[in-house]
């Protein structure tokens, strides 16, 4: 515990109100500085974090639509991995991701996380557009996405591993490809 009553000249004078004023000012300054610091730190963290976060990723269809503006800038791309498109060649994994019936060809240069192997898993990739003729399930394309970081965006759906599964695991999520003008080959 601290000494509760500072020995202050004002105190001797018996002017309690003056003592209280004096103490109050310093305390208020300390608290004010503390709260201000906290607000600044909090604000900075929010802005830094959310600027990043509000556009955490672009979906495959948006990435294609914004291709010109994006140029060779780095961005995050989101889509579901097409199981039949996955191929590994040396250290490079190639596959396609689909979102809203738009398919992007991806060349990924780093080992993907374990969950990448689950069929139709949504992933977030970091990289940029690179010009190059490719053929996707949706047709020909002039660019592919060169990626060097993959995050698996697993869903909030949970099901027991050993439950009897109906249909094959290659089956796309319900309704995911319903409006697409193309067929997706199966494994």
């Amino acid at each position: 515990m601290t000494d509760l009553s500072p020995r202050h000249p004002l105190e001797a004078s018996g002017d309690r109100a003056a003592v209280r004023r004096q103490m109050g000012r310093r305390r208020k300054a300390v608290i004010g500085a503390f709260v201000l610091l906290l607000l600044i730190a909090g604000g900075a963290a929010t802005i830094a974090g959310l600027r990043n976060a509000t556009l955490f990723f672009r979906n495959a269809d948006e990435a294609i639509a914004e291709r010109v503006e994006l140029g060779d800038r780095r961005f995050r791309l989101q889509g579901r991995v097409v199981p039949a498109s996955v191929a590994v060649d040396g250290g490079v994994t190639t596959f396609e991701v689909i979102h809203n019936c738009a398919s992007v060809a991806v060349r990924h240069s780093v080992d993907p996380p374990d969950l990448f192997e689950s069929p139709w898993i949504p992933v977030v990739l970091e990289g940029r557009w690179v010009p190059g003729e490719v053929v996707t399930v949706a047709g020909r394309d002039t660019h592919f996405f060169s990626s060097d970081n993959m995050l698996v965006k697993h869903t909030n759906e949970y099901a027991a591993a050993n439950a009897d599964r109906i249909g094959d695991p290659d089956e796309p999520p319900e309704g995911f490809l319903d409006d697409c003008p193309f067929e997706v080959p199966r494994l």
Partner: protein
Amino acid sequence: MIETPEPDLREQAQRAGSLSMTGSVATRVLGVVAIAAVGVMALLALWISPADAVQGDAVRLMYVHVPSIWVAYGGFVLTAFASARVLWRTRSGVGGTYGVIADRQARRWDRVAGAAAELGVLFTALTLVTGSLWGKVTWGTYWQWDARLTTTVLLFVTYLGYLALRRLPAESRARARRSAVMALIAVVNLPIVHYSVDWWRTLHQEASLNLEPGGDRNITGEMYWTLLYSWATFTVVALWIGIHRYRVLRLEELAEEASLEELLAQRRDEQAAGR
């Protein structure tokens, strides 16, 4: 000093045969239930519940991660509620001579706010740590500054600040009112954290439990019940510790009052001796 005739903690503890100073019959029962529940939870979460079809065993982290943040949410809501009570009971014109909380209710609510916030901070920390470990095995990264993770860290830091503010020395009334104001500001972040996954694009998945009536259930049977059971367990554990913490806060107040008395007595003696 203002007398606060509250039950004698020591007497209460002795009556319950409790080893701790802050125990009572209620906390002993809660403590036994909490420890037993944790044991059952470990069995359910680590052994009986199935592995996930996609995530495998990593899904078991959900039973710690999700209940942790629910309990933290509860703690912060309680802090806000108690803080509103504190502000109401200490509003100008009500009691409060020389900056001391005169009102017994206000003191109690202030303790509730402090104990609940501390538990909230503890469980938010657990949420962040278990989430990070979970993220490593599912997303492939310990950390990403997406909206959910960023706002949760902000929540954690804000309430750390709240606890620090509570410790800044000041007259009891001013300290209680000041921290109550901060608690009411800090709680604004709570819905932002919760809905961040809906409002922004995040790496983090959306809420696992759809609480709307008739909503889709994203979690199958055993996993669902294990999650709910874990939440109940965490709640009992938090209540148990919270009651102890509340009483320790009371003891802290008593110690402060006693040392104040002592200092005053010393000062009086000095004066009598003519220094």
